[in-house]
């Protein structure tokens, strides 16, 4: 038995003969470590870290978390960086994505390679604010294989299925209703759409006839992603043909499209992958350079009374810079309650549409895809205030342009958003010294690092073989 100060290896065999020279050493004191138990301990530590979640998420996970024999340590690394290096499904290569509302229409998978181009803004000026990160993920190729987790990465393009959900259908119609108000008007209004990813994409698709669209999805999907970015990507794949054909009118106002799930609660570092991101909007000077004097912030419901945390500083800066910011709920746009919906649904032409709130509950009119792809085939227009008579009242509630035919009366719905004004408040994002900086731990994922070599062995969440491989071997 050696003491802790003795060199750990002791030579127990030695030959120095003309025919052979050699030696053998043993480390008798090698700890009787159980790597599985150690692994469990590591995960437990991470779960404890997860219990300490604040509003901004887990803070500085595990920089001091080490295994008992110091072979490994866990350190947080930027999630997107790890995905770009080791694959979109880093640490979960054997797990699959689940898509809701998979579309059955014909789908050209090879078009995914053009996605970041097809969905780019048409204006070169606006393109600098476009964040193509999500749309680059389908064809991205990992740069390396984690040393301790050599699973095969299926390209995301092969795992992706376009989706078209009921909620997307509604959002598309609402986007189209908004666009109808901007036909030749509102050139000095910038729209910020902040809906759940798939609905945000659908809203933008509906509005594409009147706006130049700048998507800002700055993350990649992951099987355990806290943000369901794969649904957003799948929605974008569905509408890709529309965006590819879309030509924004000259001087079309900009529409910035955000994924409202980007700040989703992140509570379980042991099982979730933190693919959250923060909104990236133009600074006040840049917004003005785009010709914007007003910002319309589109939220899901009228019950929303304030902007998401990461937008506060930008919106306050806009407001102080004489760019007025107002809010409107997507549900402010709906169909005429008694107007029949002309849908070519199989065996049930002429389905009656429900009012917006009921449609939101999932009982609204069904729709069919346009033959050959594209948006839902629907001849029924939707309106601000759910009526032709209130539609142009939009420009009364938001007095930034003069409509050709003023609205006959005000909508009956409540609309607190028209009186909204951003107020400075303390958020996890406002404490950061630099604009756009992230709270500690935000968008980070814990990785396992070999202390001796510094190499990244894999994601801490990985159960795909790094730590539980079955017996096997190689030899030559």
């Amino acid at each position: 038995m050696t003491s802790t100060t003795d060199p750990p290896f002791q030579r127990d065999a030695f030959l120095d003969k003309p025919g052979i020279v050699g030696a053998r050493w043993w480390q008798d004191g090698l700890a009787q470590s159980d790597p599985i138990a150690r692994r469990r301990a590591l995960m437990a530590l991470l779960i404890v870290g997860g219990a300490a979640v604040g509003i901004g998420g887990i803070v500085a996970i595990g920089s001091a978390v080490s295994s008992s024999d110091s072979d490994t340590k866990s350190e947080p690394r930027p999630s997107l960086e790890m995905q770009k290096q080791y694959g979109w499904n880093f640490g979960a290569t054997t797990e699959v994505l689940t898509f809701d509302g998979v579309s059955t229409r014909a789908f050209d998978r090879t078009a995914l390679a053009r996605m970041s181009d097809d969905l780019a803004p048409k204006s070169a000026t606006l393109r600098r604010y476009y964040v193509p990160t999500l749309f680059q993920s389908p064809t991205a190729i990992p740069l390396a294989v984690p040393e301790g987790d050599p699973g095969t990465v299926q390209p995301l393009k092969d795992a992706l299925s376009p989706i078209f959900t009921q909620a997307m259908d509604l959002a598309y119609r609402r986007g189209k209703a908004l666009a109808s108000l901007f036909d030749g008007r509102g050139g000095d209004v910038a729209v910020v759409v902040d809906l759940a990813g798939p609905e945000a994409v659908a809203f933008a698709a509906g509005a594409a006839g009147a706006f130049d669209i700048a998507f800002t999805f700055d993350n990649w999907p992951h099987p355990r992603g806290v943000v369901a970015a794969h649904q957003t990507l799948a929605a974008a794949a569905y509408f890709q043909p529309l965006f590819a054909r879309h030509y924004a009118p000259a001087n079309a106002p900009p529409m910035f499209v955000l994924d409202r799930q980007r700040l989703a609660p992140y509570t379980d570092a042991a099982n979730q992958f933190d693919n959250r991101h923060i909104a990236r909007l133009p600074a006040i000077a840049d917004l003005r350079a785009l010709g914007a004097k007003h910002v319309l912030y589109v939220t899901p419901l009228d019950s929303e009374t304030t902007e998401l945390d990461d937008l506060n500083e930008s919106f306050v800066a806009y407001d102080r810079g004489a760019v007025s910011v107002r809010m409107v709920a997507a549900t402010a746009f709906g169909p005429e309650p008694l107007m029949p919906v002309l849908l070519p649904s199989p065996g049930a032409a002429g389905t009656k549409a429900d009012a917006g709130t009921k449609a939101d509950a999932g009982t609204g009119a069904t729709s069919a895809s346009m033959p050959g792809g594209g948006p839902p085939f629907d001849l029924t227009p939707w309106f601000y205030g759910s009526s032709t008579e209130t539609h142009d009242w939009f420009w009364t509630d938001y007095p930034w342009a003069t409509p050709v035919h003023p609205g006959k009366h005000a909508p009956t719905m409540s609309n607190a958003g028209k009186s909204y004004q951003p107020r400075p408040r303390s958020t996890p994002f406002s404490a950061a010294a630099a604009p756009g900086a992230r709270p500690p731990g935000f968008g980070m994922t814990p990785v396992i690092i070999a202390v001796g070599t510094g190499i990244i062995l894999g994601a801490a969440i990985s159960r795909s073989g790094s730590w539980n491989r079955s017996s096997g071997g190689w030899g030559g």
Partner: protein
Amino acid sequence: MRHSILAMEVCMRLDPSLRASLRERIVTHPLAASYQDKWNLYMGAAGELLPHVGRFERGCWDYFNDDARAQKDFKMWCDGMTTEEGARVAPSGQAGGYRDEPRYMTFTMAFLLAQDTPCDLAIRALCNVPQTALWRRDVFQRILQGIGYLNFASVKGDVIYVIPGDDAWGLTVEDLTAKKFEYLRLLEG
């Protein structure tokens, strides 16, 4: 504790300078060695061998993360030294001479690893080589280049030996065709 094994043996024309250098590393290595001593020993040996990869003629390497096999095989590799099984019992004479018969040397190293440690996982990844490439010289090169991944805190035992210990005891072609050396395969590439 469960174990894995990494082992490698290469065979090439006897290079007196290389043989002497490797021998020197072995005989001067401390009886009681630290992790750093061990790492230095194998990094040094690998560094001396790498320039000679193109001259490797035969070889064998193994990685297994089956505990029983790892322990059995490590004993086998150790026995290759302690029983002097591979060594000649008489000198073969210096290379050159009238018939110019070549002389060969072998270098062997084997490690008994604590299974599923990061060190083991790194070595496992290093050795994850397609079946069709097992006997290629560049695979031996890859493994030698990856020796630095070894963390000796996770190594339970190691053995290293060189045949011959003296230039006059080099292996002959006839020696290498004996059954005891049949595990050494001709290398490709």
